[in-house]
Every structure is written in C-alpha cells, then in structure tokens.
C-alpha cells in the first residue's frame, strides 16, 4: 500500500514545526551553521528545498497594490504551504539515476541510497519540483519519507509535529478520499480549492496538496514532465545529424578526388595552386 502525505495548505499556519522536526529527526545541520541571512521574503528563512532543508514552508503574501481599497486587507490573503518531496508515482529522479542509488521502497516512496549515490547530479537536474540537491558531502539528498520511522511503524516526523494536521500521513488512497471531501467542503464555502497531484501529474504524487490558487503561485509547475520525455526525439534528430556528418565527410573527400580526375583529364592543364591559397577550397 502506497504511503504518503496529504498537505492541506488551508490549514497551514506557518509555524515551521515540520521544518524543525525534519532537521531534528534526520540530524540535518543548518546551512552555514545557522549563520545565514534572513531572506527578507516574509517569514521564510530557508528560501527553498535543498540538501539541508527537506521541508520548506513557503509564505505567499497576496495584497492589492492599494491596501485601503474596499477596506483594509479586504481581498488580501496570506498563503502558506509546507513543501517537500512529492514521491512521484513516475519519478523523474529515479528514472534518470545512472547508479541505481534512487529506488522505490516497499512504501512506494522514493529513496536515495546514500551508500550508492556517487554525486553525478542527474537527479538534481531531473526533478521538476526543485527538490533534490547535493549536499556538502557531495551526494544527493532529499526527504526520505522518514523511511527509518516507517520501518518501525511510526509516521514521519513532520506529520507528527504538525499542530494543525495540515500535513497528514497515511495510505495515499485514503488520504486522497479525505482531500476530495475537504475540497468539496471548501468549494461549498466559496473557496476555489483543488487537489494538486492526481494521476494527471507524473502518474500521481504520493505527497499531494490542496491548493487555493494556481500551482505557479506556490512555485509548483503546471505540467511537470518526465525528464526523458524528449530524449527519443533528441536521439532521432542526432541520428539525422550523424548521417549529415558522414555524408558531408564522404562528399568532401569524393569531391576532391573528382576535381583531381577532372584536372588530370583536362586538355589544358592548369598549374597547381600555391599551397597558401587553398583555404577557399
């Protein structure tokens, strides 16, 4: 049975307990020993998901240019979202990993085996969500869905720490049913909510979200693709180019031979051109 996260962004209060729990359980140090500058972007202090931040709470402030218009803060909202690895059903990072370091576990999560990864960074460039990153140790890192805790029947640290149940852990099918109900409730209240991460996105995301604005507002891609989506076409076009290289090479050598034969058969022999003028051949 696939396990995963259901993250209800409407319930997130931006407390970052998930970030702290993730760092504590997985023993991840703070970047630069915690001496980093504030981002200046609302309450966001880590900026992005990285090898040292497997959870990242995003703060999206939406205020009209004229805050006084139609009453102070009317029409304004503050979106918060705890982002992490999506543990995609069709995972681009797993697809491209040339060492087999990235595997799918018995919980259907996507896991990087640290003793196999050699730091080639193929997975970093393949993840459309900007999740995977290389750490100071040269290896790729990301959320493990607390694989070690799952093996002992515990839920991931972030889900356990979340005080509002914005992050829920469980069987993906059950979580999706719950998310659909939540979306229906929100829509009944006039909120334009939807689930991001159904089958239309990389075969489904085992870590999916209830959002109330377009995906790109949350920094999520509208239509993420498998990294290899264009590879076959790329190889096919390269094959045509290879044929062109071969044909031009053969033609250039043949042309010269034909020119020599023509010159030899010519009734009025022309003198051999000086060597240093041959560049316009």
């Amino acid at each position, binding site marked *: 049975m696939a396990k995963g996260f259901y993250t209800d962004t409407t319930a997130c209060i931006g407390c970052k307990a998930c970030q702290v729990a993730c760092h504590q359980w997985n023993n991840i140090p703070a970047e630069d020993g915690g001496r980093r500058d504030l981002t200046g972007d609302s309450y966001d202090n880590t900026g992005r998901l990285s090898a040292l931040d497997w959870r990242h709470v995003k703060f999206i402030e939406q205020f009209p240019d004229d805050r006084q218009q139609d009453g102070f803060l009317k029409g304004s909202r503050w979106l918060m979202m705890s982002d992490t690895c999506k543990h995609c059903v069709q995972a681009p990072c797993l697809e491209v990993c*040339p060492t087999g370091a990235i595997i799918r576990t018995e919980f259907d999560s996507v896991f990087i085996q640290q003793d*196999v990864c050699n730091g080639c960074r193929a997975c970093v*460039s393949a993840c459309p969500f900007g999740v995977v990153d*290389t750490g100071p140790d040269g290896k790729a890192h990301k959320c493990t869905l607390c694989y070690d805790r799952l093996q002992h029947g515990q839920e991931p640290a972030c889900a356990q720490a979340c005080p509002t149940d914005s992050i829920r852990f469980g069987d993906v099918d059950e979580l999706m049913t719950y998310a659909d109900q939540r979306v229906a409730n929100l829509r009944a209240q006039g909120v334009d909510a939807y689930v991001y991460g159904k089958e239309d996105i990389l075969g489904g995301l085992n870590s999916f979200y209830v959002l109330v604005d377009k995906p790109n507002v949350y920094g999520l891609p509208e239509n993420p693709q498998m990294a290899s989506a264009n590879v076959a076409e*790329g190889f096919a076009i390269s094959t045509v180019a290879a044929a062109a290289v071969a044909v031009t*090479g053969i033609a250039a050598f043949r042309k010269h*031979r034909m020119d020599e034969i023509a010159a030899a058969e010519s009734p009025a022999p022309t003198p051999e051109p000086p060597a240093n003028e041959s*560049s316009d*051949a």
Partner: protein
Amino acid sequence: MPNAPHWGWFIILYFFIGGIAAGLYFIGTLALLGGDPRDRPVTRFCYLATFPLVLACGFLLTIDLGKPLRFWHMLIQSERIPLPMLKYWAPMSLGSWVLGIFAIFSGVAFLGALIDSGRVTAERATRLVAWGRARPRAIKLTWSLIGISFALFFGGYTGVLLVGTNVPLWHNAQLLGAVFLLSAASTAYALLVLVLRRRDDRESMVSLRKLETADRWIIALELLAIVIMLVTLGSFARPLITGGFGVLFWIGVVGIGLLFPLLLPSLRSGTLSRRPTLGATCVLAGGLLLRFVVIMAPQWPNIALWKL
C-alpha cells in the same frame, strides 16, 4: 524548476574535448577508408590524439562526481557485483557505457597508429596489430563502421543528456544533440586544419583542402540547426539569447565561431587572408563557448561562472 545541478567547467571541457575526440576518430577513419595514401598522416594524427582525449574525458567525468571513487557505480551495480548497471533510456547511463566502449575502439586505433609511427616496437603489440590487419576486409570495414557509430553517438549524446533533464532550456531543445554533434565534427576538422597548416608540406595541403571543404559544410549545417533549435525553443531560449549570455552567444558563438569562419574564405581582405589559421581558431573557440553558454546560462546565477 529543478535546482541547479552545478555542472561547471569539468563538464564544459568534457563536452568540448569529447566532441573533438569523437570528430577526430570519425575523420581518421573516413580518411582511412575514403581517402588516398596522402591522407595517411591525417588518420595517424587522429588516432594518436583520440585515445588520450577519451581518457581525459573519463578523468574529467570522474573528478566532477561528488564521490569520485564511486565512478564505477555508473557501470556496475554496487550491491550486486558484477551485474551491469545500465538504463538505456537515461542518456547519462548510456553515455557512460558508450564512453567505455569508445575507449576500446580508440585504444585499438591508438595502438595501430603507434606501431605505424614506429613509436612502439614491442613484438607482442606488433603481432596483435598485424593479426588484426590480416582479417578479411569485410571484418575490418564492419569494425570501422561500428567504431564510427560509437564515435558519432559519443559526439552527440552530450546534447541529448541535457535534453534528458527538466531544466526548461535544455529539456525543450531537442536539437541540442544535433548541434553538439555538428559542433564536434566542426571543431575536430578545425583542429586538424591547425595541425596541417603547421606542417605546411605538399601532402598536408591535399588533405587540408578536403578538411576545409567538409568543415565549411558542417558549419553551415550547424548554423541551420541552431536557427531551427532557437525557433522551436521559443520563449524557453530566453536564458541563452538574452543578457550577458546572449551577448556571448550571438557575438561569440554565432558571429565569431560560425559566421566569420564560414565567410572568411570569401573575404578578400588582405590582412585576414594572410592568417590561414584564423578561421579554424575561431571555430575551436566558438565550440568551447557554445558549450559554456548552453551549460551555464540556465544555471546562472545559482552557479559561479568559474565553478569547476
């Protein structure tokens, strides 16, 4: 949007040197099969140069890894030794194997060229090469054609490797493999032109004319491929064609690296025509710059421009 993979100068140089190695092997074999006896020095130089360049490629790839001592994980399943590790749908995995196989082909050619040039006289090596040359022509031809196939794959796969990512500029540039392959051939021709110009003997001049003709045709094709790539990329091309990288791309890659060498023979300017190596030098510089801007543009500013 993916995080920057931090592919820097080791990868830029790998793409550049690998392209030249692939091009040299192709030209060397072409001169062997389709040339005349006056082209033998070309073949010898190509074969002597390719193998060391391929070894350099392996070295650059290895030191670029976060864990260089685990380079063999690309080829062998580290938990199930000695089962091979191959994902034919992943260009990086496929490329690792092709690099290894191409090293065998270029190594054999290197050995033959060493013996031809009299630099190796070991009896066992001489006997081995003599045995190979005594094979029927059909077998030697098949061997050469397979070698050329691996060379051309190696020259172009680096572009497809970038297509096999989710970085928008790379992912949507399906022609990148073709552009890199044409650039590989072009830079190899240019390198040979430089070498032959230095020799400046009558035989070299005969080969030179063929190589310069081929290079001009390839440069024209590369320009065409770049135009089609930019048109199909649309707005995804923005990091490549605007800003500082845009200046480098338009002036450095397209202007100096392609258009100038293409039009140089037609220019009858006295100063320029007295510098016969200028065009080839520009082609080589343009080839390196092409890889620099293509690799760096979408990663910047999340990567230092001097990142190794």
